[in-house]
């Protein structure tokens, strides 16, 4: 199968083309990039006036299958991902049953292939049943297709278990992703501890619940000379700790979510359960620090932590409602509006944080760049298109977004995965 992209203003992390190029995609690969390519009887996409990015990669998504297909499925979740410009997603293991064995991994990969929209890489659990006690069969999980392991939704709290997990995963060269949260400190908190939690009478989640684990895992990575990836960083102190660790050559990488660089804990004021997320929305200083961390590369990746929940589950009051918000379809819009148009990130940096760096961290060697011979995963974005987030436009099965009604600038126009168009406006 052949597809030709005409007039592409290519944005790679290391270089932005200043002249439009044509890109020829053949057999799932990028076969040629040139000022002008002519091919007979070939389907073509005109990208004139748009920006052409390497296919976006999201290292942190909850597809909810198996177990909570009322919230999301591989099919609806990857449709939502394609609409959001993503060509690869890593899906987290807190499903029912937990992704802690090869059979579940294979089932998800097979279902994603059947749907055929997005490359899905299941993230296996670090511990059996995500119980924090016994290690999973990591080598088998890797062989089944896992590029990373995490107990996401839960933290590996026992330091000895985390040490063993890091040593073992280092041996088989498999990335561990830590959900940094000491639950004894969170102590039932439902929002950021501070002025607003005090006024709203809601239980506060203190930032130290995150930072003590960030600091501990940095120390473990240093001691064991291995890598660790820290999920959804939300705090200024976390950014500072990671910056220090990187300056020491410790192999730590990190990610942050659009809601953590856009919203503060003030958004919780009306008790809207769509603003209940874990880690919680933080202070204005934290938001500024996350932006800085993304700018200087302390935080490597932008991820969504797409966490679909049904209306019924979210309608149970702020204390009882589950944590999480959907994010796949608003990530590009928020990144462009809040970071690119506000001059926090250049376009090249956006390509890096949303594609090149996630490919590097996630070990996807043939992705993350528009270059001859690499996978034909491409995202075409209109940087100046203004649009409003509307409930009825979501393709995700769930609609729990606090961004409904928000006006954004920058929209995904076309998504191409493996040389096939998987989404077009």
């Amino acid at each position, binding site marked *: 199968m052949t597809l030709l992209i005409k007039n592409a203003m290519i944005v790679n992390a290391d270089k932005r083309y200043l002249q439009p190029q044509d890109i020829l995609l053949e057999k799932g690969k990028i076969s040629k990039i040139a000022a002008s390519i002519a091919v007979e009887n070939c389907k073509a996409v005109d990208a004139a006036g748009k920006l052409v990015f390497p296919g976006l990669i999201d290292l942190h998504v909850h597809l909810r299958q198996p177990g909570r297909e009322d919230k999301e499925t591989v099919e609806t979740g990857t449709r939502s991902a394609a609409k959001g410009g993503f060509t690869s997603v890593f899906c987290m293991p807190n499903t029912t049953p937990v992704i802690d064995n090869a059979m579940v991994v294979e089932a998800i990969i097979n279902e994603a292939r059947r749907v055929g929209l997005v490359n899905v890489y299941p993230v296996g659990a670090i511990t059996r049943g995500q119980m924090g006690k016994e290690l999973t069969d990591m080598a088998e999980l890797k062989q089944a297709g896992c590029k990373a392991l995490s107990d996401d939704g839960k933290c590996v709290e026992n330091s000895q278990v985390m040490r063993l997990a890091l040593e073992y995963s280092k041996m088989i060269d498999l990335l561990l992703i830590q959900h940094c949260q000491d639950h004894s400190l969170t*102590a039932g908190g439902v929002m950021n*501890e*501070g*002025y607003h*939690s*005090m*006024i*709203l*009478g*809601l*239980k*506060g989640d*203190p930032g130290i619940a995150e930072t003590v684990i960030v600091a501990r895992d940095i120390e473990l990575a240093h001691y064991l000379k291995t890598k660790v990836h820290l999920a959804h960083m939300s705090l200024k102190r976390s950014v500072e700790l990671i910056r220090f660790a990187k300056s020491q050559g410790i192999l730590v990488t990190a990610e942050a979510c659009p809601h953590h660089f856009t919203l503060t804990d003030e958004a919780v004021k*009306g*008790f809207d359960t769509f603003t209940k997320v874990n880690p919680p929305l933080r202070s204005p200083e934290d938001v500024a620090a996350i932006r800085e961390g993304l700018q200087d590369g302390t935080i490597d990746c932008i991820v969504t932590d797409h966490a679909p929940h049904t209306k019924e589950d979210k*309608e*149970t*009051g*702020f*204390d*009882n409602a589950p944590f999480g918000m959907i994010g796949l379809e608003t990530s590009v819009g928020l990144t462009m509006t809040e970071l690119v148009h506000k001059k926090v990130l250049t376009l090249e940096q956006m390509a890096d944080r949303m594609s090149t760096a996630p490919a590097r961290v996630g070990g996807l060697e043939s992705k993350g760049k528009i270059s001859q011979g690499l996978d034909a995963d491409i995202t075409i974005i209109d940087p100046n298109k203004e649009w409003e987030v509307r409930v009825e436009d979501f393709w995700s099965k769930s609609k729990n977004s606090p961004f409904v009604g928000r006006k954004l600038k920058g929209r995904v126009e076309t998504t191409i995965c493996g040389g096939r168009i998987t989404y077009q406006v």
Partner: protein
Amino acid sequence: MEWKKRDLLDLQSLDKEEIELILETAKSFRQVSTRDVKKVPALRGKTVALLFYEPSTRTRVSFELAAKRLSADVVNIASSSSSSAKGESILDTALNLEAMNVDMIVVRHYSSGVPNVLSQNLKAAIINAGDGSREHPTQGLLDIFTVQEKLGNVKGRNITIVGDVLHSRVARSNIWGFKKLGANVTVCGPATLLPRAIKEFGVEVSYDLESSMKKSDCVIVLRLQKERQQEVFLPSLREYAKLFGVSQSKLEKASKDLLIMHPGPTNRGVEIGADVADGRQSVILEQVTNGLAIRMAVLYLLLGTKEPSTA
């Protein structure tokens, strides 16, 4: 001044004039309860539902009597005997009450913000009778009313709130209300039971009850929520009583005119000594009497003056 709000959700969103209007209205209702025939027809034909998801004696009875003395019809729903025991959500329960044309819902809930969510979804007037750790506005109003009655004015007075401020909705309503009327508020309690951001509330913070009492016109003693102590906020009740209990010996070192208030129910011997609670300076039972007048005033202002708006 005319009352314009449909609901009473908190004191945070009331301005000084609105609080004063409620206090003024309460004065005229207070004598109704001292008559032989304790009833006026102000809310005849109105229906008030009391929806309580947490145990309560004082507040629930106070609201019920307030509504009845204003001639409203009252229905009582306790969570244990209602459909909530069958898994119905509180919003569903409230919508069903509204479908039966209930004019007002007085709600108490263990989760902060529940009255706000009801207000966002219902046309009926909502009164917050205490939500989680957020607010208990009628308690705040009756405390202010009591201080005003006993001391003549609130402005410039020094009020100390002592105890578990972290979990207390009474403390939050009191801080908002007293500050709006120009009082100086000090909170006093163990560091583990004060919110981390407490200074941003615009109050003084003290860990020394004796010296705070010496500077105060009124001490509001919070109930120590013993059921929360499983989380080890405190070394022991014994040490708490020693440091933060309002005892006769601490009282003797303070002004003879110092008012002692407590929202009830009291843990005698823990946060307040029995002799203090029953003593000359205690106005705990007057608070209860005033609470009825305050709740009559609130019911009347929300329902009596005109049809509730549908905004």
